[in-house]
């Protein structure tokens, strides 16, 4: 069969490419970085969850505010179909996948703990939180790969897991366990912010603002 240019004109692929395009402004990475840097405050006291609730409530409006002024005038704006409206979507299926991912991550973490530590000791779980978190990050990785068909997003889960494994096998004194946990999330967060800023700067330089016809005429 002759492969034609039209083989590549596929509405599903266009949607994936468009979704990927709207990730290039780096704002998602910056947001993720901020979340990661402040995640360990939950280990200090559970009341800090109020910060997270505040963040979740206001993150979306803040991101939209920034995108209205920087991203949409350059890329335009696309409204994607909500997942709930797509054929084959099921809340149960999504929750099941999340549950399987979480349980799978726990099983792999405990297995790795037994292999490295030589024993199963629940008191060591704090040491293996970075590795567990890294595995859980494959969830967002898989989601992004599915939405964009870009294999590079596997890097998010792979890097978080490898970094988490390295942190987990290091020997820290018990009294420093909080600091080393914070160091893991802080490292991930800072790297995400740096990546986000680099992408933002490249994005702003690559895509000029497109002025609407009414603006050009005036």
């Amino acid at each position, binding site marked *: *069969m*002759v492969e*034609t240019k*039209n*083989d590549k*004109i596929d*509405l599903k692929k*266009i*949607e994936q490419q*468009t979704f990927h395009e709207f990730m290039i402004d780096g704002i998602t990475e910056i947001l993720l970085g901020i979340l990661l840097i402040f995640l360990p405050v939950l280990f200090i006291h559970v009341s800090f969850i109020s910060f997270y609730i505040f963040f979740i409530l206001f993150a979306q409006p803040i991101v939209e505010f920034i995108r*209205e002024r920087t991203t*949409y*005038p350059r*890329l*335009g*704006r*696309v*409204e*994607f*179909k*909500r997942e709930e409206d797509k054929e084959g979507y099921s809340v149960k299926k999504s929750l099941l996948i999340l549950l399987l991912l979480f349980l799978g991550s726990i099983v792999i973490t405990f297995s790795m703990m037994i292999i490295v530590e030589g024993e199963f000791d629940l008191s060591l779980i704090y040491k293996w939180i970075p590795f567990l978190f890294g595995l859980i990050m494959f969830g967002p990785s898989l989601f992004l790969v599915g939405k964009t068909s870009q294999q590079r997003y596997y890097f998010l889960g792979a890097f978080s897991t490898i970094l988490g494994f390295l942190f987990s096998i290091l020997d820290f004194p018990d009294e420093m366990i909080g600091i080393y946990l914070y160091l893991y999330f802080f490292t991930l967060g800072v790297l995400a912010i740096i990546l986000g800023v680099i992408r933002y700067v490249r994005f702003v330089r690559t*895509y000029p603002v*497109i002025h*609407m*016809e009414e603006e*050009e005429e005036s």
Partner: protein
Amino acid sequence: MENADLIFFKRKTNLSWGNLSSHASKLENAGYIKIEKIFRGKKPVTVLKITEQGRKAFDKYKEIIMNVFQV
């Protein structure tokens, strides 16, 4: 995708505003897209949305072109 605004289409097609508007009107007249004017905040925005008829026409167009190249 649910819909996209004119800036998106201008960037993707590199057409002038006049050409873009002309093509959009023809597609709307054929029933392949809907042109809607909505407000985002206080700003009026023109968005284009493909219809079911438009999707079917696009798939048929692809099929015809592929058959032409295979002959």
